[in-house]
């Protein structure tokens, strides 16, 4: 691939885009070079993460969100990209990626591009190449990028680092209020969605989650019981602090999705007004640099150590002659 390889991407050629995504997913040297070239064209899209336990209706909700974004501004409709991650089998390395099944409403729309990807061993709810894929879509001019994580429960919080706005999707009847007070996934929510709001138990689910949300912000809650949003007295604070709204949706028929879109847009506005947008971008890029640096250093360092030395060292660990800590010190000193 030479210099002009990014032109088809920038001009929105879909097959070229699809092929580049494959290269990025496989982390080929050509893809790395192309990503370098595309990088100056990125930073324009609104990245929206959608996470939550398996079976809460994430794919159906993504389908609805995309549909509504396409319709929102008829004169100048947003282009929507969807990256849907499903788990790779830890035993065979294979995967069944089934998120498209719920997204058939979007087919035939040239302003939508759906890409399924397997997690390929990553444990944070995304795949290693997800960030790269998102960059490609961003450079290709998609204004809205929806990132659906694998069915995630408690610690799969990588999405919060990647996305500007993170939706955590819950549904009635999943776990009790103890689940709600555990650390992790609820903490990363910019917007909480109770999907399948037509099922029994929705009121219980909502009160458990609302209780949880109010605990996270005890001061305001003392003053304004239950009124999470748009309380006049907190307007000064609203500038710096975002109160995650709690919304009900029924993704199968689109109920509540319009309100959800309004909340997403409001969150983007809030981030831009308070500088949070730049902050998140900065944190994300710094984390990316950190990861890449670590990978590259380890790779280069390992390449310089003869495999024999390395296995001999491991053998010493097994025999308890060295601790892992001591082994690292020896390696760094070049004495192993």
């Amino acid at each position: 691939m030479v210099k002009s390889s990014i032109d088809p991407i920038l001009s929105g050629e879909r097959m070229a885009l699809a092929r580049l995504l494959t290269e990025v997913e496989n982390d080929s040297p050509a893809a790395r070079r192309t990503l370098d070239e595309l990088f100056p064209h990125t930073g324009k899209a609104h990245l929206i993460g959608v996470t939550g336990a398996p079976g809460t209706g994430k794919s159906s909700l993504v389908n609805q969100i995309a549909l509504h974004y396409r319709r929102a501004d008829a004169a100048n409709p947003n282009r929507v990209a969807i990256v849907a991650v499903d788990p790779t089998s830890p035993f065979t390395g294979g995967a069944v990626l089934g998120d498209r099944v719920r997204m058939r409403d979007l087919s035939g729309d040239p302003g939508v591009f759906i890409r399924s990807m397997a997690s390929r061993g990553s444990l944070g709810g995304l795949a290693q190449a997800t960030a790269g894929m998102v960059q490609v879509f961003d450079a290709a001019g998609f204004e809205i990028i929806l990132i659906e994580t694998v069915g995630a429960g408690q610690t799969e919080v990588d999405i919060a680092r990647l996305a500007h706005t993170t939706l955590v999707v819950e549904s009635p009847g999943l776990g009790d209020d103890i689940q709600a007070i555990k650390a992790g996934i609820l903490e990363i929510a910019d917007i909480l969605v109770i999907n399948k709001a037509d099922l029994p138990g929705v009121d219980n689910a909502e009160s458990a989650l609302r209780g949880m949300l109010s605990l996270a912000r005890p001061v305001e809650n003392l003053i304004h019981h239950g009124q999470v949003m748009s309380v006049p007295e907190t307007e000064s604070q609203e500038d710096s602090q975002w109160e995650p709204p709690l919304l009900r949706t029924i993704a199968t028929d689109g109920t509540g999705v319009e309100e959800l879109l309004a909340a997403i847009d409001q969150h983007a506005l809030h981030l831009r007004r308070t500088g949070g947008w730049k902050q998140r971008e900065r944190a994300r890029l710094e984390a990316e640099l950190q990861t890449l640096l670590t990978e590259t250093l380890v790779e280069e360092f390992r390449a310089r150590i003869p495999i024999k030395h390395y296995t001999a060292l491991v053998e010493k660990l097994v025999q308890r002659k060295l601790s892992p800590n001591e082994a690292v010190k020896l390696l760094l000193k070049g004495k192993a």
Partner: protein
Amino acid sequence: MSERKIRVLVAKPGLDGHDRGAKVVARALRDAGMEVIYTGLRQTPEMIAEAAMQEDVDVVGLSILSGAHMALIPRIMELLKVNGQERVKVFVGGIIPDEDCPRLKEIGVTAIYGPGAPIEKIVNDIRLALKPSK
């Protein structure tokens, strides 16, 4: 992480509602280490070609029990070509009368499987079909 995975789209074109076979094949290909994109029932040729393009798959597997294969498959082959995916290997499973097979092979279908076809054979055939082009 640069190991190249085989990506397969498993789709059910047309109107019959029986996807047990397609799901069994999807699962078997998964167990063979492939990444299978499953699109569900009642897909039009346009939907299938679009998904194959967006997902940049190596293989498209079609399951057809309705008897409409001679209408659906040529259209899918044509659309794949229009999108620049003539290299994609197309496999067909289902109820396909013997006399239709030569015509389907002629328009580029790689292999056709009837009821009872051993899964291992399908897996091997896919691997073989992709070998020379890699």
